[in-house]
């Protein structure tokens, strides 16, 4: 008997695993609001949202589990998986400063503005 993989292939080509978290775009109809997706419990709080594209298509930028991605697709929703959120987070965490570059206050930030 062929053992079925637990990993589901995403329509965007990215595989999703049920227990992992993904950053994704979910297509929203022209007369819909995030309320229409409420039962999927997407995490889109304070996420940057893109305006509608040239065709008037809107997509909700959110985080969701692999299980939720599967449920969205089963419900006929178009989902584009942008990133494995956990891997993306680990990569971003490498950009957090280590230690104390300001040495307890003995040094200070230079700032980003140019004096004129």
């Amino acid at each position, binding site marked *: 008997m062929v053992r079925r993989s637990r990993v589901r292939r995403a329509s965007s080509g990215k595989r999703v695993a049920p227990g992992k*978290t993904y950053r994704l775009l979910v297509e929203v109809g022209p007369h819909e609001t*995030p*309320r229409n997706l*409420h039962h999927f*419990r*997407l*995490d*889109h*709080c*304070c996420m940057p949202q893109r305006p509608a594209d040239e065709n008037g298509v809107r997509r909700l930028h959110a*985080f969701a589990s692999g299980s939720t991605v599967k449920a969205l697709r089963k419900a006929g929703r178009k989902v584009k998986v942008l990133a494995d*959120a*956990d891997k*993306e*987070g*680990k990569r*971003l*965490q490498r*950009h*957090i*400063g*280590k*230690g*104390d*570059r*300001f*040495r*307890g*206050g*003995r*040094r*200070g*930030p*230079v*700032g*980003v*503005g*140019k*004096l*004129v």
Partner: protein
Amino acid sequence: MALILNTTEIASALINFEATYPELCRRLQLPKKTYEGRVCHALQIAKGHAQHKPVVLIIAGVHAREWGGPDIVVNFAGDLLRAYSKGKGLQYLKKTFLARDIRTIVEESTLVVFPCVNPDGVEFSHTKRYLWRKNRNPAHSKGDAKKIGVDINRNYDFMWDFKKFFHPAAWTDSLASDNPAIETFHGPEPFSEPETQNVRWLMDRFNPV
């Protein structure tokens, strides 16, 4: 790529500003420690201490995973102090603020910056779970790590009781939640959290803001 400020560096930056520009700013120790025992500070920037000047309060680092806010606030404060002390203006790409604009801010208003309202959450997002949003209060978790924390930006008293103020059709997770497992859990009552209490303290101290 410039490295993002960690919570230690945010605190050290304020210490440096106070030491470097003692005539222009002073650190304010907020009254409430976080759940993990952190002491928070804000920075008051003003030339002189006239009571009638309008007060502007800028806060950041409320939702832990929204990185960059504390950096923006710290760098803005540093730029402002640096420019004023040298009698200069500031330019950010194509936008220029003249020296007189800088003088107006420092001499005709009181600016209060609180760059890291939720240092426990920010630290957790920086070092453990990137997607973390709330503070780190476990009081309502019943031992479940996924239920730790209160959304500080839902813990203020303005329309805290969302079910009273909003139609049921608007009750989504992004509005607010009374479920500790949800990212927008508003806490057991308004201002239940030390982080929110610290912001309220600043609002009361500098009333009106």
